[in-house]
């Protein structure tokens, strides 16, 4: 066992001492998780799903949980709150802060750590149930270490009129802190809602966000989900969303990734019953030395499902993008319609992207397609814009924005589009704007 792994093992043992009141089933899950982590350690580039993303920088540092809830400036809170109505759930340094939150009617929100102790029966059937990457080191660390996170339940046939916004805020004033938020979203049969997760931080030290979100969509449920990752430039961000869909349910997701020194966004969807559909879309914008990694896995298990994926990357500086999209169509999943597209624009000569589509089709009556395109700003398009009086940088930015807008238009969450465009434009302005060639 190398010393870093031993460090995590010891930290786990210390925590375990204070967990006597946790239910047996959870302790068992945690034991299995830490054992799996100790056995395998952090992934290396020799592993297929990690071949383009080297996490040595994470593995080399003993990240520690920070238990203190920082004093938040009133300005910070206001800014975080004012983006629309509906429920606002605030998670700070991985801990759900009820006092900073506002919970609208129609949903049931609890701290998952609290729910485990007080109402284990509503957590046990679901925790770890949707997850399809139990062998992954970061998933295992989350399971072994999580203390808090959001448990969100929407009852049968409830249609939420307003969105649920969850903000995961890291106070990065201390170096090498880690948070392992664990979220569970259970959408009852026939329910409908919108969930927007945002990951942000105060500028400062290096930290690790290692979040896991599990989503269960019961029969006919509809969830429009977005994840906005604008962590600080010193951050490491590893997040996975695991969605399990019952019959005729519909899941849409949009992930925007602009922050972090190294950020990995994993989106797993299992269409576990017939006629379920999902639409996964994403946009990643990198510059400087950023590494932005997107992983998707859509598992078509039953007939007549459909999945549509569009991911786009805009990479400047020495940044690096990864898109790995796996689609599995099992033997039972006749009548499946599965499409995947990945496009990337390289805005510098030193930016790089690796795209890896993987289709495994075991059924015969299916429609599947995938496509990947990597290019640069089109010279003819630049010429066209400049010939209309638009400056060279502005023309480049306009083309990049247009490229981004195409995928932003795909989100089902109308009110979010403007916010997404603003975040994108802000980042592009830094890339194309003054002081940077």
């Amino acid at each position, binding site marked *: 066992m190398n010393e870093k792994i031993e460090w995590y093992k010891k930290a786990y043992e210390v925590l375990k001492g204070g967990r006597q009141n946790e239910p047996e089933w959870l302790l068992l899950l945690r034991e299995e998780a830490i054992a799996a982590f100790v056995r395998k350690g952090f992934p290396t580039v020799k592993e297929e799903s990690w071949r383009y993303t080297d996490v040595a920088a994470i593995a080399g540092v003993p990240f520690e949980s920070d238990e203190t809830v920082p004093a938040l400036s009133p300005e910070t809170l206001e800014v975080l709150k004012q983006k629309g109505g509906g429920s606002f759930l605030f998670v700070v340094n991985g801990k759900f802060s009820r006092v900073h939150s506002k919970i609208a009617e129609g949903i049931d929100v609890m701290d998952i750590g609290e729910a485990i102790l007080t109402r284990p029966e509503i957590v046990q059937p679901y925790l770890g149930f949707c997850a399809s990457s139990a062998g992954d080191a970061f998933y295992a660390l989350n399971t072994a270490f999580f203390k808090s996170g959001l448990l969100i339940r929407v009852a049968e046939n409830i249609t939420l009129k307003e969105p649920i916004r969850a903000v995961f805020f890291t106070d990065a004033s201390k170096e090498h802190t880690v948070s392992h938020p664990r979220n569970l979203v259970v959408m009852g049969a026939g329910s409908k809602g919108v969930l927007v997760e945002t990951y942000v931080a105060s500028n400062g030290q290096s930290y690790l966000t290692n979040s896991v979100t599990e989503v269960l969509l019961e029969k006919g449920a509809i969830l429009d989900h977005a994840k906005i990752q604008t962590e600080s430039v010193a951050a490491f961000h590893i997040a996975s969303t695991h969605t399990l869909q019952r019959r005729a349910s519909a899941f849409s997701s949009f992930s925007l990734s602009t922050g972090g020194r190294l950020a990995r966004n994993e989106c797993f969807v299992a269409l576990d019953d017939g006629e379920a559909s999902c639409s996964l879309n994403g946009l990643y914008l990198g510059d400087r030395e950023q590494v932005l990694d997107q992983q998707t896995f859509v598992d078509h298990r039953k007939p007549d499902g459909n999945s549509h994926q569009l991911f786009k990357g805009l990479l400047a500086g020495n940044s690096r993008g990864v898109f790995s999209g796996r689609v599995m169509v099992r033997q039972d999943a006749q009548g499946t319609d599965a499409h995947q597209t990945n496009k990337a624009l390289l805005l510098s000569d030193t930016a790089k992207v690796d795209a890896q589509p993987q289709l495994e089709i075991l059924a015969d009556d299916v429609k599947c397609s995938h496509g990947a395109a990597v290019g640069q700003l089109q010279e003819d398009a630049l010429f066209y814009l*400049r010939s209309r009086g638009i400056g060279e940088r502005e023309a480049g930015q306009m083309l990049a924005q247009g490229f981004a807008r195409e995928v932003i238009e795909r989100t089902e969450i109308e009110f979010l589009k403007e916010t997404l465009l603003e975040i994108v434009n802000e980042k592009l302005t830094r890339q194309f704007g003054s002081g940077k060639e």
Partner: protein
Amino acid sequence: MLQITDLHVSVEGVEILKGINLSVHPGEVHAIMGPNGSGKSTLTRVLAGHPSYVVTRGSATYEGKDLFQMAIEDRARAGVFLAFQYPIDIPGVNNAYFLKAALNETRKAQGLEELDAMEILEFLKEKMKVVEMDASFLSRPVNEGFSGGEKKRNEILQLAVLNPKLAILDETDSGLDIDALKIVSEGVNRLRSSSRSFILVTHYQRMLNYITPDHVHVLMGGKIVLSGGKDLAFKLEEKGYEWVKSDDRP
């Protein structure tokens, strides 16, 4: 307004233009005709500043300035406009946004106030009447999914909006049916003025049925081999470009 002298231009090391001389004065309409591959489009693109074209000899002076020393956008802001033969699709950028950016950049360069969103919209709607375009075009991405005729009308709309001093139209008539050709030609005619000059590049004479040029030039093998008045176009239509090379011509 524009003085081209002994202009030689190469693309990827191949010389396309081999000594062009042309003077365009304010208010004049010049038609440049010629067979395919004669260098017509090269001439329009080099004037607009396309980076693939290299000037190996000669000069072009626009309003007393060396055109080839000016950046692409600076030429546009100074009043040079090229209507593209094949307008480029700009996915994700809507027409109104694009036109607003182009107009305001140009206005800024001319020392004029930038227009705000509302003012622009009114202005654009007015200009769209010139080419009989529906307002719905404003919210569509630039040229994306436009038919050939719509793309050409969009070019003329930009011409109307940007109000250039020198408008260069590269085969604007190609691919247009007769109705679209009329609309585009009438648009151009309405934009003619004593201070604005046009260079119309075309393969066929048919657009010149609607737009009467002051001068007609024949471009062949990278040179202007023949110049004349508007009647020259009819003669070319009747006798073909081969006639220019034969001894039968005036």
